[in-house]
C-alpha cells in the first residue's frame, strides 16, 4: 500500500520533523524515532504491527522514511496478537507499536498472552513528554508500572542517550532463556531528541544455565530402570527449536509420548507411540498412560493445571525427569527427581538411549487403538470434529492453523494434525478469546506463501472482528473457518454439566450475519448447515485465491469430550452426559 503523504497538524513540532531529520542527517545525528528503526533493522525486523496516536507521532514520522513495513491494525490488541502470531509462525521477534494511554493499555492483553506462552515480542509505546510525566497529562498512563505484571521485562527511556542500548537489550531479553514480551516506553521528547548512534551494542545477560553433569547420570539410571515411562512434551520444545532433537530422542527410545496444547506439532503425529494431547480435554489413551506411568520425562512443560487435573492424583506412581530452561519451573508444581536445566537442543541427546519397554509400548498402542476418535454422528447436522479432521486432511502441507478459545479450540487440538509447533498457534496459558484472527494476520505476514487458517468460534471472532479490515487493507489471503453454534459454547457446556443447566449469558443467537459481515470487508464467504455440504465447502475455501470465511453451523448442544472435571484425577474423565 502506498504511503500516505498527509500528516496531521495537531502538533506543530511534528510537522517540522521532516526538515529536522534532513538537517540532522548531514550532521550524522538522528532523532530517537529514526534510531529506533535503525535498531529494528539491525535485529532483522522487516514488519511491525501498530496503531498511531499523539505521543508516538515522531516514531511514525520516522517510519515514513524507513524500509520497515508497518501493518496498520484496527485496534492495539489486534496489533499485539499479530506480533505474537508473527513471532510464533516465523520463530522471530514480533514487534508492535502503540501510543500512550489507551493505546498502551490496549496492548496489555497481548503482552499477558505472550508472557503466559513465552513468546518473544517487543512492544514500543509512545509516552507523554518527560516534562509533563506524572501530571495526569492527556493520554498519560503509567504503562511502565502496568507492564510489571505482564512482561518479562520493561523499560522507560527518559534519556535519549540510553535509547540505543535499551532497544538492543529489549531484543536480547525477549529471546534469551525462556522467551517473553518486553515493553519499551519512549516519551515523546526522547523520540524527537537528537542522538548519534554508537553502533551495534552487544548485550550480555545473566542467567546462562548449564547442565549439571551429575543430573545426567541419575536421569539415565531412572530411564533405564523405568518399566512404564511416558514422554510429556510442552511448548518449550518448539521455543527451543529442538523438534529434531526431540524426534531423534523418540526414535531412539521408542518411548510412548503425549503432548500439551502448546506442544502439539513437536511430536510427529504419525509416530505409533504418540498418544495425543493429555489433560482436561486430552485423549483417553494419553491420560491413562500418564496415570499408569512409573516415570515422566517432562520436556519444556510446566505441569499446568489444565494438564494435571487434581495435582495430588496426577501420575501418582511416577518419578519425574524435568527438562527446562527456566529454573523457576523446577519443583514449582511437581517435585522433580532429576532436573536438567538448559538448552533442550544440547540436553535431550544426552538421554537418548534405547529402552527395553516392549510390553509397555504394546499396552499404550492398544489403548490408542481401543480409545480412538469416533466420527459417526447421527443426522445431517454438521459435526465439528469431523469438519476439522477433514480440513486437516485436505489442507496443504505446512498450513498454519490459529485458533481462538473455547470448544472449537479443543476440537482443533484433538482432531487436527500438525507437523511442527509453528503450525498450530493457540492461546494456551492465558486462554485469550480474540487471539485467532489477528494471530493469523501476523502468521500470514511472516509466511506469505503458506496457507494460514484461523479456526474460530462465533463468540471469539467478535472479540477482534475489526481486524477483518486489516485483512482487506493488505489483501491477506487468510482463511477463516468459523464454527458457529450461536453460543459461548464452552461456558454453556460447563453450565450444563456443573451448574445444573442454568444457562447464564451464553446465548449469542443475535450474532450478525457473518457472511454479510465478511462481504462488507470484501471477503468472500459462505455458510453451510448440512453434512453433505462440508467437503465441497472446504475445497472451495482452500482453492480460493484470497481471504475467505466459511461459516459452519453446528448443533448448539454439542460438547467437547472427553472432559476431566475440575479438581479431578485425569483417569476419571467424562466421556458423555
Amino acid at each position, binding site marked *: 500500500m502506498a504511503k500516505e503523504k498527509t500528516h496531521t497538524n495537531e502538533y506543530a513540532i511534528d510537522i517540522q520533523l521532516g526538515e529536522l531529520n534532513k538537517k540532522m542527517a548531514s550532521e550524522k545525528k538522528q532523532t530517537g524515532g529514526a534510531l529506533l528503526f535503525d535498531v529494528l533493522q539491525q535485529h532483522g525486523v522487516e514488519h511491525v504491527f501498530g496503531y498511531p496516536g499523539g505521543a508516538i507521532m515522531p516514531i511514525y514520522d520516522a517510519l515514513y522514511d524507513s524500509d520497515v513495513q508497518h501493518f496498520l491494525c484496527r485496534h492495539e490488541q489486534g496489533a499485539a496478537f499479530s506480533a505474537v502470531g508473527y513471532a510464533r509462525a516465523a520463530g522471530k521477534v514480533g514487534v508492535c507499536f502503540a501510543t500512550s494511554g489507551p493505546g498502551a493499555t490496549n496492548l496489555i492483553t497481548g503482552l499477558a498472552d505472550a508472557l503466559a506462552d513465552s513468546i518473544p515480542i517487543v512492544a514500543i509505546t509512545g509516552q507523554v513528554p518527560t516534562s509533563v510525566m506524572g501530571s495526569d497529562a492527556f493520554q498519560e498512563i503509567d504503562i511502565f508500572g502496568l507492564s*510489571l505484571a505482564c512482561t518479562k521485562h520493561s523499560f522507560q527511556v527518559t534519556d535519549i542517550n540510553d535509547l540505543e542500548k535499551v532497544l538492543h537489550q529489549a531484543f536480547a*531479553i525477549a529471546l534469551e532463556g525462556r522467551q517473553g514480551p518486553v515493553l519499551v516506553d519512549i516519551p515523546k521528547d526522547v523520540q524527537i531528541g537528537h542522538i548519534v548512534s554508537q553502533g551495534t551494542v552487544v548485550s550480555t*545477560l*545473566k542467567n546462562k544455565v548449564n547442565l549439571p553433569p551429575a543430573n545426567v547420570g541419575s536421569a539415565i539410571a531412572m530411564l533405564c530402570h523405568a518399566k512404564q515411562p511416558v514422554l510429556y512434551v510442552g511448548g518449550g520444545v518448539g521455543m527451543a527449536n529442538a523438534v529434531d532433537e526431540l524426534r531423534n530422542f523418540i526414535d531412539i527410545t521408542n518411548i510412548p509420548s503425549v503432548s500439551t496444547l502448546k506442544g502439539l506439532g513437536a511430536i510427529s503425529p504419525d509416530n505409533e507411540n504418540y498418544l495425543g494431547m493429555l489433560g482436561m480435554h486430552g485423549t483417553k489413551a494419553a491420560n491413562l498412560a500418564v496415570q499408569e506411568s512409573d516415570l515422566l520425562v517432562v520436556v519444556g512443560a510446566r505441569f499446568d493445571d489444565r494438564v494435571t487435573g487434581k495435582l495430588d492424583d496426577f501420575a501418582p506412581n511416577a518419578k519425574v525427569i524435568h527438562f527446562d530452561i527456566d529454573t*523457576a519451573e523446577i*519443583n514449582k508444581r511437581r517435585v522433580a527427581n532429576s532436573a536438567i536445566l538448559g538448552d533442550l537442543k544440547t540436553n535431550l541427546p544426552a538421554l537418548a538411549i534405547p529402552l527395553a519397554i516392549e510390553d509397555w509400548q504394546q499396552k499404550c498402542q492398544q489403548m490408542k487403538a481401543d480409545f480412538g476418535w469416533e466420527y459417526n454422528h447421527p443426522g445431517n447436522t454438521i459435526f465439528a470434529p469431523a469438519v476439522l479432521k477433514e480440513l486437516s486432511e485436505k489442507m496443504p502441507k505446512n498450513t498454519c492453523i490459529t485458533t481462538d478459545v473455547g470448544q472449537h479450540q479443543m476440537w482443533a487440538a484433538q482432531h487436527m494434525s500438525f507437523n511442527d509447533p509453528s503450525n498450530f498457534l493457540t492461546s494456551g496459558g492465558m486462554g485469550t478469546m480474540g487471539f485467532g484472527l489477528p494471530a493469523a494476520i501476523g502468521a500470514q505476514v511472516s509466511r506469505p506463501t503458506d496457507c494460514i487458517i484461523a479456526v474460530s468460534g462465533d463468540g471469539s471472532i467478535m472479540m477482534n472482528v475489526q481486524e477483518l479490515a486489516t485483512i482487506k487493507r493488505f489483501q491477506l489471503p487468510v482463511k477463516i473457518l468459523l464454527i458457529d453454534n450461536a453460543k459461548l459454547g464452552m461456558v454453556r457446556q460447563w453450565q450444563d454439566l456443573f451448574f445444573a443447566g442454568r444457562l447464564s449469558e451464553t446465548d449469542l443467537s443475535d450474532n450478525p450475519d457473518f457472511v454479510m459481515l465478511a462481504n462488507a470487508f470484501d471477503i468472500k464467504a459462505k455458510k453451510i448447515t448440512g453434512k453433505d455440504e462440508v467437503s465441497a465447502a472446504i475445497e472451495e475455501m482452500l482453492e480460493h485465491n484470497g481471504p475467505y470465511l466459511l461459516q459452519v453451523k453446528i448443533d448448539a448442544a454439542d460438547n467437547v469430550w472427553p472432559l476431566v472435571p475440575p479438581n479431578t484425577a485425569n483417569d476419571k474423565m467424562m466421556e458423555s452426559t
Partner: protein
Amino acid sequence: MNHYQLNIKADDKQVVLERILQVARYRGFLIEGINAKVNTGTHIGTIELMVRSERPISFLVDQINKLIDIKDVKVDTNVTK
C-alpha cells in the same frame, strides 16, 4: 506460617523495588518489612526483604532471581524461622 528474610543484590534502578514487591505479593508472600540502600560507588542496591508465607521460600527466590535487574538472592538462615 513461615517467616523469612531475603538478602537481595540488584542493579541500582528505581523500579527494582516495585518489581520485587510485585513478585512477592503475586506469588503469595506477605511483606513484613523492607530495608533498601544503594552503594553509590558500585551502583549496587542491597535489599533486605522480610516476608511470611506457607509456601516454601525457594518458590519466591526462584521468581525474584528471574528478574533481569537482580544480581543475587540469598535466604538469611539466621533470621528465617
